[in-house]
């Protein structure tokens, strides 16, 4: 189909140019243009399909086999149908891991959200030195997970610095890492520490896009500081907040590095902090069961996708329902979608 169209286009370049009257570029040959498009975009598309899309498709295929990763699954493995998926979903360890993951998803939102808004409000005040402060709160976000893990696991040891400080203040130290009742809270605290800087910067950016005039008008009307924040800042911050929630959820669902580094692959289960991803790595590559690991990966993918799509459907596009037929609204929606995509893009660095 495409080839035919292209052939027609090459054969009748004049007609083609006429048809695309809106296009102002003087075209020096349709064929050359297509060649340019091809040369410029092919490397990226090939690489992207090869390393991003293909593994997911392959994973879905591997998931049906009991396979140790040598040769091809159909020759060296055994076709087991949906058994991998059934085993995984019935495994109490995986169920625990899913539970922990969702605890982390919700915990991060509840802890980081309000704090990030408060801190952003604070840093949105005009005062000297706030540029420096903004840089400094971004430090934990820039430091790698391995370093955060190594540093904090030293700080949080039974006889580590944190407990020493607590004891000097007259409180009892806690076994932060090994006690299964405490460990998940420790993890939540660490995640909040690592990623709150990002949330604050995102909220700040959102706040700075609120027009100054609104605040001035509110002040003239005699509104107090908190009243202004409640009736102007919060509602207008909603789009930013929605993006942040989305990013935070996707990130939490994929959480791997921090847990794997601090607790290792075996302790994480007993300490009650195993996540879906650590379970996948432990049972998949760790145990050499690549078929099973791929099945678990697909389950994680489907769970993430369901969460993402549900959220997008009910929250991100909520206030645009029924406006789809309106062309203006559609354009607006597209523009917003692009903006959301961009924010997503920048943030994926941390999520990866």
């Amino acid at each position, binding site marked *: 189909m495409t080839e035919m169209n292209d052939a027609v286009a090459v054969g009748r370049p004049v007609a083609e140019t006429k048809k695309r009257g809106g296009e102002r570029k003087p075209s020096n040959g349709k064929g050359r243009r297509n060649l340019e*498009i091809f040369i410029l975009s092919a490397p990226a598309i090939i690489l992207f399909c090869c390393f991003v899309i293909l593994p997911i498709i392959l994973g879905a295929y591997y998931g049906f086999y009991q396979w140790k990763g040598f040769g091809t699954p159909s020759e060296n493995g055994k076709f087991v149908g949906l058994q991998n998926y059934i085993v995984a979903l019935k495994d109490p360890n995986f169920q625990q891991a899913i539970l922990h993951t969702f605890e982390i998803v919700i915990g991060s939102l509840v802890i980081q959200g309000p704090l990030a808004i408060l801190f952003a409000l604070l840093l949105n005040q005009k005062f000297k030195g706030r540029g420096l402060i903004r840089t*400094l709160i*971004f430090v934990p976000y820039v430091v790698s997970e391995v370093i955060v893990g190594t540093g904090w696991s030293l700080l949080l040891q039974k*006889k580590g610095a944190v407990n020493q400080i607590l004891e000097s203040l007259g409180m009892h130290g806690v076994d932060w890492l090994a006690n299964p009742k405490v460990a998940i809270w420790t993890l939540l605290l660490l995640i909040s520490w690592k990623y709150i800087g990002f949330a604050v910067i995102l909220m700040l950016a959102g706040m700075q896009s609120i027009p100054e005039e609104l605040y001035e008008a509110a002040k003239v009307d005699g509104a107090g500081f908190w009243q202004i924040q409640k009736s102007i800042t919060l509602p207008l911050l909603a789009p930013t907040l929605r993006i942040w929630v989305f990013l935070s959820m996707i990130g939490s669902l994929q959480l791997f*590095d921090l847990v794997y580094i601090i607790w290792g692959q075996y302790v994480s289960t007993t300490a009650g902090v195993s996540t879906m991803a650590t379970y996948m790595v432990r049972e998949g590559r760790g145990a050499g069961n690549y078929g099973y690991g791929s099945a678990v990966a697909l389950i994680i993918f489907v769970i993430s996708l369901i969460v993402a799509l549900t959220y997008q459907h009910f929250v991100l596009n909520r206030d645009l329902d029924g406006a789809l037929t309106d062309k203006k609204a559609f354009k607006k929606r597209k523009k917003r979608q*692009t903006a959301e995509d*961009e924010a997503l893009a920048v943030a994926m660095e941390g999520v990866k």
Partner: protein
Amino acid sequence: MSAATAYSKKNSFHKSSKTPWGNPIVYFFSLVLVAICVVPVLYIIFGGFRTNAQITNNPAGLPNPWVISNYKEVITSDVFWTELVNSLIVGICTMIGVVVLGIMVSYVIARYKFRYSTLMYALFSAGLMFPMTVGITPLYLMIRNLGLSNSLAGIILPQIAFGLPQTIIILVPFLQSIPMELEEACLLDGCSRLGFFWRMVIPLSMPGVATTGILTFVGSWNGYMLPLFVLSDESKYTLPLGVQMFSSQHSVDTARVLAFTSLAMLPALICFTIFQKKIVGGLTGAVKG
């Protein structure tokens, strides 16, 4: 030039000549926040200047006296430099690959009007939904089958692929904002579309390129999962793997682990501090839409 000026406008955080001093409460809470964020990192850096005895006896104390032997040992060891060079190779190659491929395909999506441009954009933005975690097992098998396991190329190529979506999504609006008149003027002067790309688009999009490049570099520098899967030979290790190996090998020698760790985070921190205005500015622009 307007693309560039618009960008720097978005970036202008500093209005320091006009900004007043804040009230003490604001400073108090800001300092608390900064302390929470920075103190653990400082603990790692200062810990490297202490001895193990100091750390065991008084975990929360400051170096007394300061010793530099830990840092000296790390700096003079081959392991650290090998891993640093590996990380640099991976980071720089990833950055260049992402930026070059990213700007090429973004130019096509932004400036060529053809049927599949929106489809291409949708394909890449869907890529944001697939973090590496989900595909890592088959990805590793594929890298192994390609004969790239245990080589730096086995990390660089997938990292470029996974870095493309965010780069494209940042760069496309950027390239779209370059005015049409500029392109027309350029074409009138006898430039080809590719010439326009080379002479005008690339210089004009430098700010956007810088943002994505730095983000990619820092992301690659901190990457852990992919090297963990792909690299098994210690001489190929990148710094995150090296830090982990070092800390399990020298688990008794806490001070040296801390010295190693703080040296490992330094390049990313420096890179970020130098360019933070660009990154934070890029974020602001992205959210504002």
